[in-house]
């Protein structure tokens, strides 16, 4: 049976521009979408591409451990939001209303279009920064991935007060920084502490989300 490391080796051909494109798409999805299922999936895929990029800078095993921490974080987000969606279950609606809601899903909202525009601006800025201010010790495509992750993470943090969105933004920002910093300081101690930081951020965001749900239920009661 192949191990996680074997699997990562098999897909290592993606660890260049395809992974950067993957990071761009997933971070962009996080910035635009408010659907928790889509966000959980995007974060999971983002960590996959991040691990691929990390394999070019650090040992495969260390990158795999970072990926495992990331996927554990995704699990925390998924379980929290799944529970929240169960508790926040809206009252049953008429069939005509359900049809209109289904249609509305395909029409882009004003909020989403604003986030999309802001995301595009940030991406252009990240691309320009990658060309003008290359980061030391990392190749050009990874520089672009770092700037994209940090920029779109900041956008997520800046545009919302919601604990989960801010948590996702902070984790995306930290992923961008970590991708750069492992090239400067590849020590296991720093990798471990960075993993602990990411996991605690996820726990804090999930804790605040449960408080939000509890407060909402108390208000409704």
């Amino acid at each position, binding site marked *: 049976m192949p191990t996680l490391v074997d699997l990562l080796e098999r897909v290592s051909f993606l660890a260049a521009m395809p992974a950067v494109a993957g990071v761009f798409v997933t971070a962009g999805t996080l910035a635009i979408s408010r659907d928790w299922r889509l966000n959980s999936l995007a974060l999971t895929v983002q960590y996959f591409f991040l691990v691929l990029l990390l394999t070019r800078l650090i040992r495969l095993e260390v990158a795999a451990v970072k990926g495992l921490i990331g996927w554990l974080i995704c699990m925390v987000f998924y379980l929290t939001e799944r529970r929240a969606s169960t508790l926040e279950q809206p009252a049953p609606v008429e069939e005509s209303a359900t049809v209109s809601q289904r249609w509305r899903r395909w029409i882009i909202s004003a909020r989403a279009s604003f986030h999309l525009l802001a995301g595009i601006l940030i991406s252009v800025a990240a691309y320009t920064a990658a060309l003008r201010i290359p980061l030391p010790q990392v190749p050009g495509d990874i520089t672009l991935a770092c700037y994209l992750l940090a920029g779109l993470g900041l956008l997520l943090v800046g545009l919302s007060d919601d604990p989960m969105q801010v948590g996702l933004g902070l984790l995306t920002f930290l992923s961008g*920084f970590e991708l750069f910093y492992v090239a400067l300081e590849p020590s296991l101690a720093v990798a471990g502490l960075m993993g602990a930081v990411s996991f605690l951020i996820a726990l804090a965001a999930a804790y605040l989300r449960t408080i939000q749900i509890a407060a909402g239920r108390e208000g409704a009661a």
Partner: protein
Amino acid sequence: MISGTLLLLILPLVMAGVVYSLLRWTALSALLSAGTALVLGIAAVALPLDQPMQLWGDRQIEMGEAVTFLGRELVLEQADRAAMAILFFTAAGLFLLAWRFTPRSLLFPMGLGLLSLLSGALLIRPPIYAALLVEIAAALSVFALQAESGPPARGGLRYLTFTTLALPGLLVTHWLMERYVLTPDETELLGTTAILLAVSFALLLGVVPFHTWVSTITNDSVPLASAFILTIGNGVIWFLLFEFLEAYPWLSDHPRFSPIVSTAGLAMVVVGALLAPAQRRPGSLMGYGALVDSGAALLALAMNDESGLTLVILSLLMRPFGLVLMAAGLTGLRAHSGNDDSFDALRGLGWKAPWSTAAFALGGLSVAGLPISAGFTWRWPLCRALAASNQNSVLVLILAGIGVMVGVWRGLAALLVRARSPKDRSVIPQSSSEGWLTAMVVIAAIGLGAAAGLFPQYLAPLAARLAETFTFYTP
């Protein structure tokens, strides 16, 4: 042989677990937390650094013994001892007040956990790794800042956000300086390092325009937990700044160091002075009071000499007497007003909760720097020191103090409104709803603050001695 350094890190963590399991017994958990902090504070100050001490049986303890953790060295040095003592003694006082005002709060176990992490941040070498421990502490503090009931506090998340944004700058600095040692002709590395450090510490200290987390944590979070962040957490950031200045002395030697620090401090003082009297909630008032306090400390640092550094350290010693007391009073007032702390909701509450009112008002006046309060003991020498070179700063500092006092006065005016009887006569309730134990704890805290204000000659030499351990200003 037990390493004292390890004791300072492990004991609070172990006690955090114990206290968490005993949380339902309010007095026990609070007294255990306060006792642990007190014992560690005494150990940090009283036990000798360079010789082992007999504990029990064959057990010995050596405070100065270095410990290796994850390949990094942790060592207690002379400069760290007083800093640790400030942290632990402040925490002990804060836990005692929390016993009466926020019983069964997560502040006790989380506070002990934070003490361990923040102590680690002060002890780890090189200090660059402290940034990671401070970040972990910020993530943990979200749990302490959040009240058990009510909506999610934005303050904790905002504090975590600003700390996370400060992390990259602090970590990359270390690598830049290592590279500069290898290639000293690349002088632009120094410029990049200075910018990264300035932005990172501005984020961590809440310098304008990165100050929004300060008033948010005091406004919507557990007040005593926010006081923990603004006294103990902020104190660690200040000591980290001193360690960075010590490690890179060219930073304070730079001709632009003083003007930049002075401008940052002045901006904080002005923003705090303008916004404090306009607040309609005592929580926000506390935040802007803390902003003025930090700004004044930056003005002291900008003096770029040992007396300035002494005043900064004295401010860190005196700040808890005002902020922690204010936070305790605010907690008591919120408890009586159903968690609504707008001035309208607090009208007349001063007669029902006189001890909370007294704690809030006297703490606020100390934060404002009223004469004979604890805050005055370092603001007055600062004004005198600045008067010769920068009269405008002195004027702004005095006006900022008045601004915070106006805010406290407005709060007090609302709190002391008398209820009217049907015959339109003012009515004063006959008894307070606060117990005698709360009264005793508040009286003790006010007494300590008054003693610190009336007899600064006991604490000022400590600050001066601590300032002497740093050499970055020595000509």
